[in-house]
Structure formats: structure tokens, C-alpha cells
């Protein structure tokens, strides 16, 4: 129980620290957010009245301590500030884009986890087999390739040569039609980015599930299970319980780091998710949006890691014995 309490305390402290770092990082770096805003506006200089209004709008004319208090108060109300380029609340922008990324990456992570578990099991059941080793080498080779190369391959083969899938965007503009048609259109557009993500994620899942399964494949409890005459499917189920914890952990971490994990893929496919929001914000030097994404993605990482530790504690008796 004390362990749990320490856990919660650590999580809360880290959350607070991230909020503080998010406030101070742009303020301790050389260069000013305002000059970044000027660079993003496309004008050589902004009129001084505009600069004054910007300064006032972002509290930059107040003493640092007052800025910090106001920042914390707004954060408490869920207010992440306003975008410089669109003047819309950052939280609304994020809420608009998050479902796209969660949908795309969620499907890709689930597919990669299931396929990885299947391939990992297949190779763990064949220790010393040449085919399994060759498959392993192939998977590692795939894992070493950068995402943008896989993405380019997908675009060229499926998008340009065979013209099967669109190579950019999230849906057909002015598509019309009912909900079913809309859903099919969205899935059609998500196909290539999803395939790229699965190809990039698969190797780690294969390795992790194989490495979790291989050591237990000849463990005593499986020998007993086999001797009892259990069907292979039941035996596999016993073995899988050992691989559950690492595979779930990995899926959770990929889900947590998804905002930054999908930037390259979303950029290449112009997919309207969080990664693309970040790319657009960077292009316009829209630093309130960048800071909002930083805060949201850090909180996501912390929360998922916190929940995963709790889950591992509940799922895996070995973790409980250690502590």
C-alpha cells in the first residue's frame, strides 16, 4: 500500500514539474517568443501597436511571478492559451486533431501488437529452426529502416504505380454521403499511413513477445500441461500469460508517445492529426500551440506509464513479489 502511495506521489510531482518546465523553457532560452511570432507572420516587422497588444495578450508585460501565477490558474481551468496564427483556443485545436491520430495510431498499434504476438509465438515455438531465424533477421532488417523510407515505398507502389490508395489527406473534401460512406472514405485514406506505422512498429512487438515467450517454452509448468494431455491451444494460453505484460506495456508506451511518434508519417501523408498540427504550428512559429502539444503529450506519457505500472502490479505476481 505504501508502495502505491509513493507511486501516486511520484506521478503528481512529475506532472507539476512538467507544467513548470513548460512555462520556463521558452523563457530561459535565448530569443523571444515574440520574435518567433514575427518570423512566423511573414512580415519583416510588426507595427509597435500590434507588438504591444501581443505582449499584453500573452502577459509578457507583467513581472515573471505574476505571469507564472496566471499561467497556473489558466491551466487549472483547462485553458492552454490561444493560437497566434488562428486565434482559436489551443485546446479546441487539439481536441479537433486528437481523434484522427488516436484512430490511426490506435488501429496501427493494435494490429502491430496482434501480428507481433502471432509471429513472436510462431518463432518462439521453433527454437533453433532456420526458418524462424531467417524470419527474425528479416524482421530486424525491417525494423532498422526509417519510417519515411517505408512511407515512400508505400506511396510509390500502392499510390502511384497501382493507384489503389490516396497518398495524402484524411478524407475526400466535400465527399458527402452517409456515415457509412464517410467511414469507408476515412479508412481508405488511412490505409497507407496505417500500413507504414504497422511496418515500423511490428519488429519491436515481434522481438518483445518472442523474448518473453522463448524462456518459458520449456518451463516446468508447460511440461506438466503437456503431460496432462492439454490441447495445444490451452498450452499456448498458459504461455501467453507471460508475454501479456511486456506486450501490453509496449502497446501502452507506443500509445503514450503517439503524438510525437506519428509526426513523420502524418507529415508525409499530410494526415490531419496531432503530428500535422505540430508541423503547421512549427511552420507558423505558433508557439502557444507547440507548448500546448508539449504539455498534452507529456501528460499522456506520464499518465500511461503510471497506469501501466499499476496494471503490471495487478497482472503479474512476479512484480508484486519484487516490491
Amino acid at each position, binding site marked *: 500500500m505504501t508502495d502505491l502511495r509513493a507511486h501516486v506521489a511520484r506521478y503528481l510531482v512529475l506532472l507539476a514539474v512538467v507544467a513548470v518546465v513548460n512555462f520556463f523553457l521558452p523563457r530561459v532560452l535565448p530569443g523571444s517568443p515574440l520574435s518567433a511570432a514575427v518570423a512566423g507572420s511573414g512580415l519583416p516587422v510588426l507595427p509597435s501597436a500590434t507588438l504591444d497588444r501581443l505582449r499584453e495578450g500573452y502577459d509578457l508585460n507583467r513581472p515573471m511571478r505574476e505571469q507564472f501565477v496566471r499561467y497556473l490558474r489558466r491551466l487549472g481551468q483547462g485553458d492552454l492559451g490561444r493560437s497566434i496564427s488562428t486565434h482559436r483556443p489551443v485546446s479546441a485545436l487539439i481536441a479537433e486533431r486528437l481523434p484522427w491520430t488516436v484512430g490511426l495510431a490506435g488501429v496501427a498499434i493494435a494490429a502491430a501488437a496482434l501480428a507481433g504476438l502471432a509471429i513472436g509465438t510462431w518463432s518462439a515455438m521453433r527454437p533453433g529452426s532456420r526458418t524462424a531465424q531467417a524470419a527474425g533477421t528479416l524482421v530486424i532488417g525491417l525494423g532498422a529502416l526509417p519510417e519515411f523510407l517505408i512511407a515512400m515505398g508505400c506511396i510509390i507502389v500502392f499510390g502511384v504505380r497501382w493507384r489503389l490508395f490516396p497518398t495524402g489527406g484524411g478524407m475526400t473534401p466535400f465527399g458527402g454521403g452517409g456515415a457509412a460512406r464517410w467511414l469507408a472514405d476515412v479508412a481508405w485514406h488511412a490505409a497507407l499511413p496505417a500500413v507504414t506505422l504497422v511496418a515500423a512498429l511490428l519488429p519491436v512487438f515481434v522481438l518483445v513477445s518472442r523474448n518473453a515467450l522463448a524462456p518459458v517454452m520449456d518451463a516446468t509448468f508447460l511440461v506438466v500441461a503437456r503431460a496432462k494431455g492439454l490441447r495445444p491451444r490451452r498450452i499456448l494460453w498458459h504461455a501467453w500469460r507471460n508475454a501479456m505484460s511486456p506486450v501490453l506495456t509496449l502497446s501502452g*508506451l507506443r500509445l503514450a508517445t503517439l503524438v510525437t511518434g506519428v509526426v513523420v508519417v502524418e507529415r508525409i501523408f499530410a494526415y490531419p492529426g496531432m503530428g500535422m498540427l505540430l508541423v503547421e504550428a512549427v511552420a507558423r512559429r505558433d508557439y502557444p500551440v507547440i507548448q500546448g502539444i*508539449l504539455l498534452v503529450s507529456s501528460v499522456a506519457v506520464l499518465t500511461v506509464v503510471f497506469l501501466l505500472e499499476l496494471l503490471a502490479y495487478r497482472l503479474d505476481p512476479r512484480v508484486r513479489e519484487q516490491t
Partner: protein
Amino acid sequence: MRTTVRAGGMVVAAAAVLACIVVVVLAAGILAPGDPRAITGLPVHSPDAAHPLGTNEVGQDLLAVWLHGGRTSLLVGSLAALLSTAMSASVGMLSVTWRPARIPLLALTEVFLAIPGLMILVLILVITGPGTGRLILALALVGWPAFARIIRAQTLIAVRRDHVQAARALGATDVRIAWTCLLPEIAPLLFTKFLLTVRWAMLMEAALGLMGLGDPGRPSWGSMLGGAFSYPLLFLGDAWRWWALPPALGIAVTTVALSALTPGRATRAMADTPAMSEKREQRRQTVRARLPFAVRDEYSR
């Protein structure tokens, strides 16, 4: 040991490929003399005798941009890796040997691991403005924490060894102990960390280049990719063949070769020898970091 011998062929091949890339890229000044940013032809022109890889959207020779860009990318990767390896080693060792620094350093590591590295990089580059020197420093700043934990775990084991105790009893200073007793113990880990981080830094450079945060004054493979993907007609014609493919292949070949060179990663992960699982078990015990972060440590940085 057997796996090391068996992996020999692959390691030699990877080293040879890497050496070729380094030589070609270092010879950029001879192969493509002059400023790679000079406008020497028509914009978006197909390859011809004067421009073997064609030209980009402003009419710069893409072969020159690729050669000089490779130099920048390799420089960024290796310098950032060198700096962040040094930081990992110092933080990891100091957090064991210098008692008052223990808690601040551990807290700092934890905080850096909590914020996604790419976000810190983006924020730094947006506010200070893109630049090669700043990029190297920012990458070094983001790249150290995961391995600092592993170094710390290894150092914790090393300080308990008899020869370290003996050295201390003989009156050796902390600095001397760190230099002569601890550093040799963690040196193989540092080599692995260096190779992994060169790979990571080059991929990050590419991601930042794709986001338009490449150094405008100095072409790199990342900014070349970024330029190519900003061209809306990239895949409508043949432009991708000489504009996007060369930098993508440059980064891919270099990073794959680096993976193949990295000890204990690619070659051993799937090996079936019992010695390997023993070693993995040892590593699992030495890396005492909490499970989720430990998984992240191994695969992302």
C-alpha cells in the same frame, strides 16, 4: 562468444559500407566544389550532364546538396552522440560517486524522460531559430537521460568490486577511481550508446528537417527531404527519384549499417544460443530501472 564470431561477416560489411559513406561525404568539397547553395541551373530540372541528380525548386544542384548535406547529417549525428554519451557517462557516474548530486541528478533524469524528446527539440529550435550548432546541442541535451540510468546501474555494481574498495583504502581520489576503475568497466556500454545515439540523432535530424526546422544556411539530408516533401508535385513525375530518394537512402543505409554494428542489438536479439538468454537475464538484473522506462530505453534512444 560464438555469436560474435558468426556475426563477424555482417559487422565487417556494415563497417565497410559506413566507411564508404564517410569517405564519399568527406570528399564533398572535391566532388562538388563550391557552395552547394549556389543556383546553377533551372528549377526542378531532370538530370543531365551538368546536374547528374537534377536540380531542386530554386535550381541548386541536387548532387552537391546531397554530398554536402550528408556531411552535415553525419557531423550532427556523431557530434550530438559524442556529447550526449559524455553527459550520460558523467551523470550516471556522478549520481553514484558524488553523494550530494544523487537526488538532483536522478530527478533531472526523470523529468527529461517524462517530456517527449521531439517536443523539447522542436521548442528549442522554434524559439532560438534553426541552426546546425544549436541542433547538435539540443540533441545532446535530449539524448542523455535514458542511458544515464543504465550507466548508473552499472556503476553501482562496479563500485562494490574489490579492486575499487582496495583503491579507496589505498587513498585514491574519487576522480582517479572514476577514471581508472569505473570508466573501463562501463566503456563497452558507452560504445553501444554512442552508436545507438548517432542513429537516433540522424533520424531526429531527418524528422526535424521534414518539419521544416533544418538549418537554412547549411543543407543536410533532413532539410533536403523536407524540401522534397514540400514540393507538391513530388510523386506526380519522376522528381522523387533524384530529390527524395537519395537523402532517404543515405539516411537509411547509414542507420542500418549503424544498427548492424551495434553490439548486442540486432545480431543477438534473435539468436537462439543459451548464452544469449543468460546475458539478457544479467542485463535485466543490472538495469534496475522500472519496467516501462526500461523498455523505452532499449528501443528509442
